[in-house]
């Protein structure tokens, strides 16, 4: 068991290493001159050449990657070309907002999908099942940014229940939460539509198993059989999809933060790309990858918790 976790941890570290290297070398073949970004187009070629030299941009790529990696493991991602402050500082300011948004969206996704999926499975072939499937079809078909605009028009403009965008900061947690509800919902609805389908079919599969029938036969209530036997046994495919969806939710924040004017990592990545701020983009992409890889690592741990047979096999 401990061995298994150690092995997964090693895999986790190697994956991150591979991703950061791939991103670094990709960034290097992209056009754009950091010296130009820093000094502006008015600058002389001599000044730019001197700066490139100072930044070490003339060193071999592999050498530069190792230098970057050495800093990164200590939390030093270099200084942003366009913001002229350390990249780590930029990230630290914006990370809480994006994590809160993605976290809230994940909670809404999972809660909504489990309730809808279990409901559809227990009402298989009846009206409730059809309604859930129709909702899910609709959710899959609608693009998130369009859904965002619909939500803003309905809940912010017409009903005036929630702010249409912007972020008031963390000083007032209630106001901060209110600002995150619409963007988190916009992110979550599409994902929960997919996850509800997966939940439904996984539940239908498990409900055919003999141990569900025998559990019912001992005199347990149908609700207990559903939530304590069927759902836990249906979790493997559900958790697999959740792991993949975390990636969608994290990258989805890029679009959603720009639609709702939220000062998070998604906005930063957008700005950094338009400014050709390669050093910032490099750190951001690696960070997004790290979040996704962490989510998958947690999913792997969840499998161990779900299935006692896996726990034994180590």
């Amino acid at each position, binding site marked *: 068991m401990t061995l298994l976790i150690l092995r997964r941890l090693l895999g986790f570290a190697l994956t991150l290493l591979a991703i950061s290297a791939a991103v670094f070398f990709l960034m290097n073949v992209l056009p754009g001159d950091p010296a130009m970004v820093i000094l502006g187009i008015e600058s002389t070629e001599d000044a730019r050449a001197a700066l490139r030299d100072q930044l070490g941009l003339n060193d071999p790529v592999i050498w530069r990657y190792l230098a970057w990696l050495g800093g990164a493991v200590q939390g030093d991602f270099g200084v942003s070309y366009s913001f002229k402050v350390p990249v780590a500082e930029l990230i630290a300011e914006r990370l809480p907002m994006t994590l809160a948004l993605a976290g809230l969206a994940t909670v809404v996704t999972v809660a909504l999908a489990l309730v809808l999926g279990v409901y559809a499975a227990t009402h298989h072939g009846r009206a409730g099942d059809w309604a859930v499937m129709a909702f899910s079809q609709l959710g899959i078909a609608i693009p998130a940014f369009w859904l965002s605009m619909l939500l803003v028009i309905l809940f912010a403009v017409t009903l005036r229940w929630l702010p249409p965008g912007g972020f008031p900061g963390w000083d007032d947690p209630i106001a901060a939460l209110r600002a995150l509800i619409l963007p988190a919902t916009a992110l979550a609805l599409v994902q929960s539509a997919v996850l509800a389908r997966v939940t439904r079919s996984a539940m239908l599969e498990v409900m055919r198993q*003999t141990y569900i*029938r*025998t*559990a019912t*036969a001992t*005199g347990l*209530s149908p609700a207990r059989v559903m939530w304590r036997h069927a759902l836990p046994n249906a979790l493997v495919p559900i958790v697999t999809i959740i792991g993949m969806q975390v990636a969608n939710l994290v990258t989805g924040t890029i679009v959603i933060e720009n639609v709702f004017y939220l000062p998070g990592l998604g906005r930063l990545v957008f700005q950094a790309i338009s400014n050709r701020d390669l050093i910032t983009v490099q750190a951001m992409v690696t960070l997004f990858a790290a979040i996704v890889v962490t989510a998958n690592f947690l999913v792997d741990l969840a499998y161990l918790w779900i299935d006692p047979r896996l726990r034994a096999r180590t």
Partner: protein
Amino acid sequence: MLLSIENVHRRYALPRTHLFRAPPVIPAVQGISLTLDRGEILGIVGESGSGKSTLARMVMGFERPDRGRVWLNGQDSATLPRAARRQTQMVFQDPYDSLDPRRSIGWSVAEPLLATSMTTTERHARAADRLARVGLSPADMARYPHEFSGGQRQRIAIARAIAPDPALLVADEPVAALDVSVQAQVLNLLMDLNRTMGLAMLFISHDLAVVASIADRIAVMQHGRIVETGPTAQIVAAPEHPYTQALFAAA
């Protein structure tokens, strides 16, 4: 009288095969009457498709008869509240898939007791006792179903069934999926429980020899009807109906 089955019928409509014709109907059980006393073992024997499992499902209250009634302790089983229904428990054929793979066996055996007024400690003690009665060690409580053999899993399923102290156990082909050597052990266990706990049984099998080894009385089923019934000794010594004689010839 613990169980009284009164002229029950059950038909299944198959999916419609023709737009303008009535869907085909299978008369699975057509007019069965049986009684079972406390502490008695009644064997039901009949070939595949004769309606044995359908009868068991109606006794358990999973399905209602189209006609006729099932009385448990003088109460109509179709309207029995869930708490009273725990008085009848069932053991199924497939031991490999009858326990939740995610739950330890102690958890599974104690679960039917959750709806009772027992405390956690009492439930735990009861589960340990029942596992001991079926020949497993209470030390096994933390282990999972996949760590046990088919015969052991059937014992665990039996332990779970007897956890709430039922008066009646419906056993539908409980040894059919087991090796012959293991079959005898499980049959001995069931007879043991019958003696020590006064547990009455409706014991169902397609194998007349198996039924004869355990039952006090035997009812022979064919095409949803009972063709012959009597004490085991009598059925074995002098089977009257040709179908019963054919079953003996096959055994």
